[in-house]
């Protein structure tokens, strides 16, 4: 069994018109046993920047704490929030530093940059950035997520339609993966508000 299949996870982010959505499943397991059904994989860095981390749960939490620490230092020094592109470079550098003994997680970063232009990117566990203009996926359900997003995605969707699309893609993909699921957690971010929704999914 691969190290990434120890806890199980599914994270996806999609770009819409001046908005973005990031979603994850809620299961935390130890191989085939489910330990928790409300695990938080997506975390806020600042109002317009979210990071979702898939992979080994302990590294997810440690890496998140490190990143929040670095971002707070940045805020103190620069007196402003980090831009999403800068944050992505920071995460990439922190991951590559551990090239020969990596953090066993894959981040998905989503944010609104200047002029409210949405930015998404994902990385492998050693920080190889993959910028995309439509969607990015990560986790044990990633193969199904690639297929579902490829079929369901349309460019320039508004916030409500984007929410529907990302939820349907997430739930249908985790249904095909034993290690992720038990509901979904979706954040849809527009320049004026953050809508956080918890989805009802199959609890198996």
């Amino acid at each position, binding site marked *: 069994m691969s190290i*990434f299949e120890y806890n199980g996870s599914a994270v996806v982010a999609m770009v819409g018109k001046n908005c973005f959505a990031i979603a994850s499943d809620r299961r935390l397991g130890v191989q085939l046993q489910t330990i928790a059904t409300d695990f938080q994989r997506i975390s806020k860095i600042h109002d317009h920047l979210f990071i979702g981390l898939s992979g080994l749960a302990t590294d997810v939490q440690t890496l998140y704490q490190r990143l929040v620490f670095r971002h707070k230092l940045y805020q103190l020094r620069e007196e402003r929030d980090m831009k999403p592109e800068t944050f992505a470079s920071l995460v990439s550098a922190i991951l590559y*530093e551990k090239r020969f*003994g990596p953090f066993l997680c894959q981040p998905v970063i989503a944010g609104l940059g200047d002029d409210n232009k949405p930015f998404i990117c994902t990385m492998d566990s050693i920080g190889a950035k993959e910028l995309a203009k439509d969607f990015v996926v990560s986790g044990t359900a990633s193969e199904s997520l690639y297929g579902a997003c490829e079929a369901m995605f349309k460019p320039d969707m508004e916030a409500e339609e984007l929410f529907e699309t990302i939820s349907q893609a997430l739930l249908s993909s985790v249904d095909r993966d034993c290690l992720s699921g038990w509901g979904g957690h979706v954040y849809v971010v527009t320049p004026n508000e953050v809508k956080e929704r918890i*989805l009802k999914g199959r609890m198996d």
Partner: protein
Amino acid sequence: MSQSAVDVPPKGGFSFDLCKRNDMLTQKGLKAPSFLKTGTTIVGLIFKDGVILGADTRATEGPIVADKNCEKIHYMAPNIYCCGAGTAADTEAVTDMVSSQLRLHRYQTGRDSRVITALTLLKKHLFSYQGHVSAALVLGGVDITGPHLHTIYPHGSTDTLPFATMGSGSLAAMSVFEAKYKEGLTRDEGIKLVAEAICSGIFNDLGSGSNVDICVITKGNKEYLRNYMEPNPRTYVSSKGYSFTKKTEVLLTKITPLLERVEITEVGEAMEE
């Protein structure tokens, strides 16, 4: 661990503090992760006025295509570009690092960078990590001494060639070059030949795919033709898109209104002399 958290920013280079834990997990039977590779076909050739570099745009993670349109031609200096194959994080990190070193060197010497400088910096770094930094590169540029093209292997050996290919599609591309290359090609002939070589990699090698990127470097000028050719467009695109009959069931909604982003323009006085 606590030391590196406090000592910000860390001194640079690699940190090995998670290696013991990862080894322990591997011994317990959990397989190590696979990294994003750029299966790749990358090529370069020297033509009459300079150098042309070409690359495909597919990034793979095992058998899955992770990125359909990634950039494999990296900027090193205004007159030097480098294509990378192998582990994606390694090629990006090593080219970024040498690009920064070249810029500092330019500031210090006051001269344009030479291709041989980039070559030496790259091969020293790769050799010192004995091939564990898995980056195979095609480096090309035009400096004061003329056009140069080099290949660099992950263990640190280099070759200087008039035409070169690297990556999993290198055999497919090399067959095109060996058949059709001649000295003193014009710009258009050179671009056509590079595009043909990359296409042969895209269509015959499973690790390469999507589009063709080309970069033409001549004395004092460079042209980065991103997605020069797109021989694999998406065929069946439904204009209506997906329609969902059954809406997702939402258990809980929490709306957080955000404060309007305020632009702060500093109105201050200039410093007194």
